[in-house]
């Protein structure tokens, strides 16, 4: 997954490669922190670190195929660890689509600026929650509100955290 590849017609946008094992370790760390951190810091439950990792590697790798596959793997892992009330595929579908969308956008725009990262993470967080609501309402026939203020606050918090987290993850890139 760490090999370079060509992007059709967008060769002026830099494709970033990462150190060996960086994506796997970052993904595992995101899942462990997502699971352990809120035990001691309850407010941290508002973060969706697996989503932020999906967005980051999608934007950096800029390959829709690897982006959607990484999103699917992270989403299914999240489903597996969420207990039997969350069916396998709920986060999987949402993160697959997010992985595809953000790597497609990453291939067309410069997404290195913190403001762009903030705005994109905000938009992807809302889209991700929207996809979960659609899956729950249409495929699982479960009542779920479309919108609440908590969603906006959570999106803002995640976007802010993403700016700093992405700077940290930038250090995993090969120069």
């Amino acid at each position: 997954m760490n090999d370079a590849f060509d992007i059709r017609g967008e060769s002026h946008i830099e494709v970033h490669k990462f150190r060996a094992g960086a994506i796997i370790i970052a993904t595992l760390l995101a899942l462990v922190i997502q699971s352990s951190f809120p035990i001691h810091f309850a407010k941290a439950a508002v973060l969706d670190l697996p989503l932020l990792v999906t967005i980051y590697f999608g934007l950096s790798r800029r390959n829709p195929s690897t982006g959607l596959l990484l999103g699917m793997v992270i989403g299914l892992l999240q489903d597996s660890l969420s207990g039997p009330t969350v069916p396998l595929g709920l986060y999987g579908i949402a993160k697959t689509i997010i992985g595809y969308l953000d790597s497609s956008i990453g291939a067309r725009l410069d997404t290195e600026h913190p403001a762009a990262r903030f705005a994109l993470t905000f938009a992807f967080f809302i889209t991700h929650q929207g996809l979960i609501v659609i899956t729950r309402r249409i495929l699982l026939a479960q009542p779920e509100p479309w919108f609440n203020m908590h969603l906006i606050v959570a999106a803002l918090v995640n976007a802010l955290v993403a700016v700093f987290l992405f700077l940290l993850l930038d250090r995993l890139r090969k120069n």
Partner: protein
Amino acid sequence: MVAIPSRHKSLVLLAGVVVLQIFMLAVQIKRDSQGRLIRVWTVGAVSPFERAGSNGFGWVRDTWRHYFALQNTTRENEQIRRENDALKLQLSQLQGKAAEADRLAALLNFRRSHAQVPMIPARVIGVSMGTASRTIQLDRGERDGIRKDMGVITPDGVVGKVVETYPNEAQVLLLTDKDSGVGAMLADSRIQSPVGGQGEPLLVMKYVPNDDTVNLGERVITNGMDRIFPRDLPVGTVAEIKSGNPFKQIRIKPAANLERLEEVLVLQSMRPLETKTEESPADAKPPAPNAATPPPAVRR
């Protein structure tokens, strides 16, 4: 065979992967299967890291609370400051351990005072991944005797029930989850109604008619009808009452602090726990007729 233009390949892959997962969802719903094998593998692979992460974050939290918060108080010379910092760090670790010892002592006392009821103490090593569910993960599993549908409590009150077990871990559905519920009643008026979660910090009591009188602050306890929890365990207190149609909208503040659970007790039987509240014998209701482990009469 129709050739797919290379620029559409990722789109085709996306469609394929999404359809595959929709199919997987459909299979789970239709067959009521929950992909247990995948979950067992994933939990088995990730839980050792979760244990380490949980311990690590606990240490960081204790250090943060007791060390950094006090750091500005040191205005001594460098040598004394260093010694002071080292002592404070040591103190913070001891305070963390003392707090943990207090919690464990409370659990132990609770367990001793209900020695006739078999319980398994367990530590929380993980919480649910995201907002779609409210679960916690315990460091004890099938090998320790934990089984599906066992009740989980703290000395403060009901926490939830075990929904999945693995060899060394178990997942507990918290009372606050949308799919959660417990057979309950109001302690004073003895009105019975299930209490469930809404995915929010407060619980909801569902079927209390508008004509019935309910008071703010009234205690809500288990009624033993769900065959998971014995009678008279604290569920919470009435925090909000509104008229509804046809039932009142009653919101309950959970008795146990479900936002911050570190150690819990898993109930291995339905035997009732002795409670200190005084009640007339006439109020004691008979056990559920088809209870898994029929509870004897409530001792008071």
